[in-house]
């Protein structure tokens, strides 16, 4: 019994030590989450998500092709680890900072904000201010927004057009920006509103997720406005047995939103 406890303790200790070793969890350069710097001195990762369900505590599975105008995100830089071969990355040395170039990307409340449409550059500089590497990322204005179920965890969400709920049900939604059918990365700040807050009320909005509650039978339109679009994206929320509403659930739009 004592031997078992000792082995469990040792396993736990080594697992903890491995997790705490700097660079132990760094991605390899071959990972799609890493975009190799233009100078080949390291790699950049995009912290948010694969343009869906923004989670600031995990890196994007794939470095995005484009970022949504008006969105916020984080970028991390890893140095090329020559000691362990080019295929590995190590944590950037203390004092390395990431500086946006020009007007396209600015500093956000946490991390960076895409503030102007164009082709943006983010540079990694060392303590002396010397350039270590840089990455180029297009910033694009979304031409549409996709409202999707916040429980969805993939990278190709379905646009919701109509949702049915029962009284006292709670539900969450997120929004991703699209341009020409392609998803854009970054957390877009959205202003949510309900056309009838006696039927469906917006409870809260945090880290890209809106929470709603169904209060009484009826129909309300939930509107999401943001991403620089003039018209809001909407989803009809049917509460209870109203009209053609059936079992509680969600209907995807037929107009190819989210492909």
């Amino acid at each position, binding site marked *: 019994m004592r031997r078992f406890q000792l082995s469990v303790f040792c396993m736990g200790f080594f697992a903890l030590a491995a997790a705490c070793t700097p660079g132990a969890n760094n991605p390899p350069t071959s990972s799609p989450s890493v975009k190799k710097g233009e100078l080949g001195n390291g790699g950049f990762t995009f912290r948010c998500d694969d343009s869906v369900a923004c989670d600031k505590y995990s890196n994007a599975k794939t470095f995005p092709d484009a970022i949504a105008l008006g969105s916020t995100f984080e970028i991390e830089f890893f140095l090329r680890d020559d000691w362990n071969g080019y295929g590995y990355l190590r944590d950037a040395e203390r004092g390395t900072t990431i500086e946006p170039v020009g007007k396209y990307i600015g500093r956000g409340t946490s991390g960076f904000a895409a503030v102007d449409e164009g082709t943006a550059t983010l540079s990694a500089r060392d303590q002396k201010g010397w350039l270590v590497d840089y990455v180029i990322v297009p910033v*694009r204005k979304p031409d549409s927004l996709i409202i999707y179920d916040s429980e969805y965890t993939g990278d190709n969400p379905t646009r919701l057009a109509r949702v049915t709920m029962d009284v006292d049900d709670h539900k969450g939604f997120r929004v991703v920006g699209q341009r020409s059918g392609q998803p854009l990365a970054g957390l877009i700040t959205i202003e949510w509103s309900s056309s009838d807050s006696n039927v469906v009320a917006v409870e809260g909005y945090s880290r890209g997720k809106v929470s709603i509650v169904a209060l009484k039978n009826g129909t309300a339109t939930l509107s999401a406005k943001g991403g620089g679009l003039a018209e809001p994206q909407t989803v009809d929320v049917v509460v209870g047995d109203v009209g053609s509403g059936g079992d509680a659930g969600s209907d995807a739009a037929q107009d190819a939103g989210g492909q």
Partner: protein
Amino acid sequence: MKLLNVKNLVIGVVAALVAIACGPDYSRTEISGTKSSPLGGEVKSNHVAVPEGMIVKAHVVPYNDDNEQMQAHVWSHDPDILEVIAVVNDRDYAFIGKKPGSTTVEFQADGETVFVVTAEVTTQPPPEDAK
């Protein structure tokens, strides 16, 4: 005896002057390994052009007439328009387009200005799919 000393002094001074005059002088600056941006840009010995928000990298090496490398220093006269910073890779410089406008960039070899070129930061074209 005195005449001999004067003669030696004159020879010494002349030899020193000849030695100084014949020391290696600045010869040329080679700009190579230019990496332009997806939107273009160039660094040449007569002109620098960088699109706004972009970086153009160049390898800059001044040589003396003994074909030895000299210490380079490159700097922008208006870093708010075009910033020039050293790259961690030896003798590489980054020309950073901060905002549209014109300025001049000074190239130095061993602390002496060897040439000054006009530099331009151009506005970006509208995104392809926004035209």
